[in-house]
């Protein structure tokens, strides 16, 4: 693994940690939100928090597509899968997400629903080809990174004349969510932690480029540094953020220039805009209804739209009132602040969505970092 080792070098890491420590002014607090679940996961997995000075704190944002999927969409998927004619193709990490009744796709499968775990969109196409008499539905989910493969899949299905194949589309958009964290109507209820800057997503930005973040950085006066997923990438990006804060700048900088450009991947963007269009609004778990933050299939592709095909209806449901996911996704609270953390809610039996995917803030903290809570208490 030559390629990755270079980005995990302990000596360079120590050097960066020293530089961050030296440049972070001791009387100031630096609170940076990593938007992306990939970053949250890597921070916990490599123990990055241990390398940062106490006044530089990472806040885990909402950037895990599984975590922000509301229970109502899971309910819809379960109802769909329970139809006798339907085969539902799902990515593995969605299987354990609880719907509103505590039921998950995994339980629905155990009760006989035809649900298949797939690893790629191509698996779903293959299943559809092998079962022409079944209604095969692909549960599409993810940010800008996973949308182009879904678009390509729909094209392929069209080309192959797959008449009983469709997509349950749950693709969402990153910049709208960042906007909503910084400014949304219910901020008054939940409150908001001051964020001094953002670690911008890596893979997402490879598709959309850095340009879409520029208006956010300007409008809210927050620096944004696009960072890769390797721990050294993140350390370097954090140093860049500290510098911007010290210098009073709020620009979009690109640490991840080996994969990200300002304009992004045009072909992928075109592919997506050919097939998808914006929804007026989409519900995010913990963030509520966020305007223009989700995608649906265009009218021309309605035959591939499972929501049209099966007249699926969304019924908004309330989350478990004790679950603090909303506050956690905004960085207002930490996982330990939730009274369900580690008691009622663990990765084995998650209550809230932040506990389901390994990229969720609660799961990452439980799986990799919870020893720190006891150290704190002991201290």
């Amino acid at each position: 693994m030559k390629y990755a080792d270079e980005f995990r070098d302990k000596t360079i890491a120590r050097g960066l940690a020293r530089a961050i420590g030296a440049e972070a002014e001791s009387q100031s607090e630096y609170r940076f939100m990593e938007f992306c679940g990939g970053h949250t996961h890597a921070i916990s997995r490599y123990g990055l928090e241990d390398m940062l000075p106490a006044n530089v704190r990472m806040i885990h944002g909402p950037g895990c597509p599984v975590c922000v999927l509301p229970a109502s969409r899971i309910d819809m998927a379960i109802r769909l899968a329970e139809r006798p004619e339907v085969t539902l193709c799902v990515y593995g990490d969605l299987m354990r997400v609880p719907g509103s009744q505590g039921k998950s796709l995994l339980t629905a499968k155990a009760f006989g629903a035809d649900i298949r775990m797939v690893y790629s969109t191509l698996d779903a196409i293959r299943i559809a080809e092998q079962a022409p008499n079944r209604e095969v539905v692909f549960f599409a989910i993810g940010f800008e990174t996973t949308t182009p493969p879904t678009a390509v899949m729909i094209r392929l299905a069209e080309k192959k004349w797959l008449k009983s194949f469709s997509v349950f589309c749950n693709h969402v958009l990153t910049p709208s969510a960042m906007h909503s964290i910084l400014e949304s109507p219910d901020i008054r209820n939940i409150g908001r932690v001051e964020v001094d800057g953002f670690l911008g997503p890596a893979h997402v930005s490879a598709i959309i480029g850095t340009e879409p973040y520029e208006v956010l950085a300007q409008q809210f006066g927050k620096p944004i540094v696009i960072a890769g997923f390797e721990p050294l990438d993140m350390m370097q990006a954090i140093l860049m953020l500290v510098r911007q804060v010290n210098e009073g700048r709020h620009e979009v900088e690109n640490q991840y220039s080996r994969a990200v450009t300002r304009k992004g991947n045009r072909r992928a963007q075109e592919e997506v805009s050919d097939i998808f269009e914006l929804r007026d609004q989409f519900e995010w778990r913990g963030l509520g209804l966020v305007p223009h933050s989700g995608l649906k299939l265009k009218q021309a592709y309605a035959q591939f739209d499972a929501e049209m095909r099966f007249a699926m209806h969304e019924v908004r449901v309330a989350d478990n009132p004790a679950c603090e996911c909303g506050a956690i996704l905004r960085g207002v609270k930490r996982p330990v602040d939730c009274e369900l953390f580690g008691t009622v809610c663990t990765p084995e039996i998650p209550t809230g969505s932040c506990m389901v995917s390994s990229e969720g803030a609660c799961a990452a903290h439980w799986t990799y970092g919870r020893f720190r809570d006891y150290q704190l208490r002991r201290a």
Partner: protein
Amino acid sequence: MRATAYQRKLDVKNGRIDLSHGAGGRAMAQLISGLFHEAFGNEWLARGNDQAAFDVGAGRMVMTTDGYVVSPLFFPGGNIGSLAVHGTINDVAMGGARPLYLSASFIIEEGFRFSDLKTIADSMGEAARAAGVYIITGDTKVVERGKADGLFISTTGVGVLADGLDLSAEKARVGDRVLVSGSLGDHGTAIMSRRQNLAFETEIVSDSAALHDLVALMVAAGGSSIRVMRDPTRGGLAAMLNEIAHQSGLGFRLQEEAIPVKPAVAAACELLGLDPLHVANEGKLVAIVAPDMADAVLAAMKAHPLGCDAADIGEAVADNHQFVQMSTGFGGGRIVDWLAGEQLPRIC
């Protein structure tokens, strides 16, 4: 189970299992004598009884049983048959015992190819012979198509334990060293890469192997200073150490840099979103050894081909929370937790 002369020969090349092969009649007897006896060939089976009487040496008996339901049945470095033999031998050996005899029970799906069954039985016979262990009794059932995923095997193993040896998780003490016999994650990654048809440049091969010889060397070198021995199969090193932590009431502190993982395995895990510490091994063991004897046991491990990459990866510590903690190669700290449910590739 008596083998006598019968009508037509088994068409091993083109034939398939049908329901008659499990019905207790002639076809079944033919399958057993023509295929299993041939592959396992030993004096106990040849007597054709429903059970086998055998001699036991001095010491305490050890017994274990295990079911094998793997997909795919064939993978780089082995198949379900060799895996079943190695796995059961290892379970006996992890008690510090010398494995002697195995039983094997087959649940076969109607339609299963004879040729595949023969390959599997042959490799079981081979694995057992190489280990000096005998498969002395067994059972065959055939179920209708769709009721089993090709083939399930369950095996029971017995062995003898030298007097005075008593390995058990609650014997671990603060300061004990954690030794692993070689690189982690090979088996699970080989299976996963096959399942997903990933063509890696270097093929990742399962580490499936019988570890009783290695164990014998270790026991000779370390005796009862070896407190616990276990093979990190499903759930990998992470699950195994968490289990021992709970049983012993201790915590563990590991050094990520000391844990051997092959570069190809690390790369594949990266790609699949897996953690090598959670991935299954079938030819590795972990030993918790008293600190004063750890070096001697480690040297004994390194002297055996299956332990040549053995390493000291950390120690047992006092911890009421029974955490398995690790200093990451990057310089931070983290927990090495159990896996929640199945290890599933992440979506992005």
